[in-house]
């Protein structure tokens, strides 16, 4: 009995010692290991919150609608199929009216009050510049679906920011290369004097330098200028055979109308605009002066002459129309709206790849996506490539030949 008791005592005391040693270690391990914490968090997770900020009122409202409509449709689809990792997504949408100060205060509200897990937006480059540092400091996975300023994506400075939309620099390279390869001799660079236009000018100049060429003329103007005759005259006086339009839809329309006055429209000159020239405002306002204008467009958002719209994109158009009304494709830029749509799916892909809601793991998972079949384009990310899109995904469409926001493929 005594022996048994001693053995029992030794066992108990040994177990107690081990337990005593293990307990604090367990506590420490529990506190220190993100994996354990994350596992608990994952099992407790009731919802996955995605914050969206965009300009939904004011002059840039069309851009905000792209974000609102694109993300809403994507989240509805994802939730209908069980959410992310079985957790439903809650979408919190805010309007920053294209005001960077408001954008930052809304981002703060989304992070601190709504406890967002990921963020999509905003819709203006200046707003993106205002909120990106804050989002990255707070390790919020950030998908940019529509701001095209090339400098916004910087893997070292903003490690949690990714982009689906083709950026300005890639568009500039694409347009310059195409014009030079087509044998255009005198190419005009047309851009405004805003940060966007100045950036585009630098990008186009770099692309010209890369191609060993010089632009024939550099035409700048102020955003919203009414009399664009001086710009048109500069293009005509230089006898340009190609003009690269880095202009917003309304300004581009004013320039085309001025070129019409000087009788200097296609086929005398080729007009090739970046994606904003595809805004409905350009063709509506330029009228007959828009005939023959080419525009950059994602290849996936185009259709061939006498052929129906691509099935996937046509289904998305229907989803947009069912949800937001029959005229919705006149209120948005379809390709940009589906770029935002893709943002939601890439977040889903990132979370589900590692079955984790941790920002670093989602970031790593998105960086490992090498061929994602998006609705706007095929995306390829990497640790040094947070811009998922590239010029190989671009095509040229005809501005005046469009159906449901998609352009007829020219080349």
């Amino acid at each position, binding site marked *: 009995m005594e022996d048994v008791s001693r053995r029992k005592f030794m066992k108990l005391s040994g177990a107690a010692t081990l337990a005593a040693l293990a307990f604090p270690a367990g506590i420490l391990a529990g506190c220190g290991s993100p994996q354990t914490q994350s596992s608990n968090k994952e099992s407790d997770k009731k919802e996955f919150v995605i914050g969206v900020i965009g300009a939904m*009122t004011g*002059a840039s409202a069309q851009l905000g609608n792209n974000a609102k409509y694109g993300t809403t449709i994507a989240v509805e689809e994802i939730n209908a199929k069980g959410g992310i990792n079985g957790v439903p997504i809650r979408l919190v949408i805010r309007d920053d009216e294209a005001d960077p100060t408001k954008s930052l205060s809304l981002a703060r509200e989304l992070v601190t009050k709504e406890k967002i897990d990921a963020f999509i937006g905003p819709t203006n480059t200046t707003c993106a510049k205002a909120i990106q540092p804050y989002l990255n400091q707070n390790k919020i996975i950030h998908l940019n679906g529509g701001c095209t300023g090339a400098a916004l994506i910087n893997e070292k400075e903003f490690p949690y920011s990714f982009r689906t939309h083709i950026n300005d620099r890639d568009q500039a390279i694409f347009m310059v290369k195409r014009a030079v390869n087509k044998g255009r001799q005198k190419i005009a660079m047309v851009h405004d004097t805003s940060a966007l236009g100045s950036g585009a000018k630098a990008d186009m100049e770099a692309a010209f330098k890369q191609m060993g060429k010089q632009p024939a003329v550099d035409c*700048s103007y102020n955003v919203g*200028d*009414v*009399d664009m005759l001086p710009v048109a*005259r500069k293009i005509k006086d230089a006898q340009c055979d190609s003009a690269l339009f880095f202009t917003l839809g309304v300004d581009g329309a004013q320039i085309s109308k001025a070129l019409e006055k000087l009788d200097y429209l296609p086929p005398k000159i080729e007009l090739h605009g970046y994606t904003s020239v595809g805004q409905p405002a350009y063709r509506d306002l330029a009228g007959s002066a828009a005939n023959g204008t080419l525009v950059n467009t994602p290849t996936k958002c185009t259709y061939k002459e006498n052929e129906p719209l691509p099935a996937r994109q046509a289904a998305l158009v229907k989803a947009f129309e069912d949800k937001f009304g029959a005229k919705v494709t006149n209120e948005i830029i379809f390709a940009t709206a589906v770029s935002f749509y893709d943002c939601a799916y890439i977040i889903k892909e990132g979370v589900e790849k590692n079955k984790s809601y941790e920002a670093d793991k989602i970031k790593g998972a998105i960086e490992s996506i090498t061929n994602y079949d998006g609705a706007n384009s095929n995306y390829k990310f990497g640790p040094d490539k947070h811009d998922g899109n590239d010029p190989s995904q671009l095509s040229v469409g005809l501005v005046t030949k469009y159906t449901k926001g998609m352009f007829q493929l020219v080349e």
Partner: protein
Amino acid sequence: MFQALESGMVMGSIYALLALAINIIYSTTGIINFAHGEIVMLGAMFALTFIVTSGIPFLLGLILTCITVAIVAVILYYCTVRPFGDKLGNSLGWLMATLGAGIVFTNIAMLVFGTQPKAFPPIGGSELVKIFGIKLLPHDIWVLVITLLIALFFNVVLGKTILGNAIKATSFSHSVTKLMGISSQKIVLTCFAMSGIIAAIAGILISPITFVGPQMTATIGLKGFGAAIIGGVGNSKGAFAGGLLLGILEALAMTQVTPGYKDAIAFLIMIIAISIKPEGIFGVAYEKKV
């Protein structure tokens, strides 16, 4: 060069129209209506609704637009100027009130009419015509002719009618006007209504050039103030001359300078003009009292 001159004259006429309306209000109240650009924008919005969207015949649409905008201008007077009484020079409240009203008008327009600019058909069709080797729209000619007619009309009204004399008396002193049996408030109201009518006409004339949108007069409105100052605030001849001068010099300067500096050139012209002749081309020179 001639194409630039034509373009400058059209833009100058638009600045002149804005300056004319600014002058009418200044001549009776001594204030600058900083919401005037936005009233022109509302004129364009109403014209778009009546003529394009509702399909009302042009002339009837024009009359309806003029009446509506005149009412808006009168309401503006009651809300932003009247509360500060007759001695407006003693208060700067009207300045903030008219500036604020402009912002309110822009936001209402965004809410009701949307934010995307819309095309407005030019008067006389969109086919370009060639005159002396210059390609221009018939609308451009209409802009020049109508502006000239409005300037002449105001010149006659102010110089040779009882209303003109009453306006001049009101601009001198509201109290003295009352003693003469003229209701200064009625005169001021009439001037606000007239400025609204000109704003409506300006809105229709500007629309095919700027497109119709809440921001359509953002820059042009400022240049309208510039034209009024160059010509001499309170003088209808000056408004017309100032507008044309600003438009033509701006267009000619653009033949030599990159268009990106257009606004800087326009305001530089304004500063130079003011520094040479502070009272404006047709303004009354300030006299030093010893």
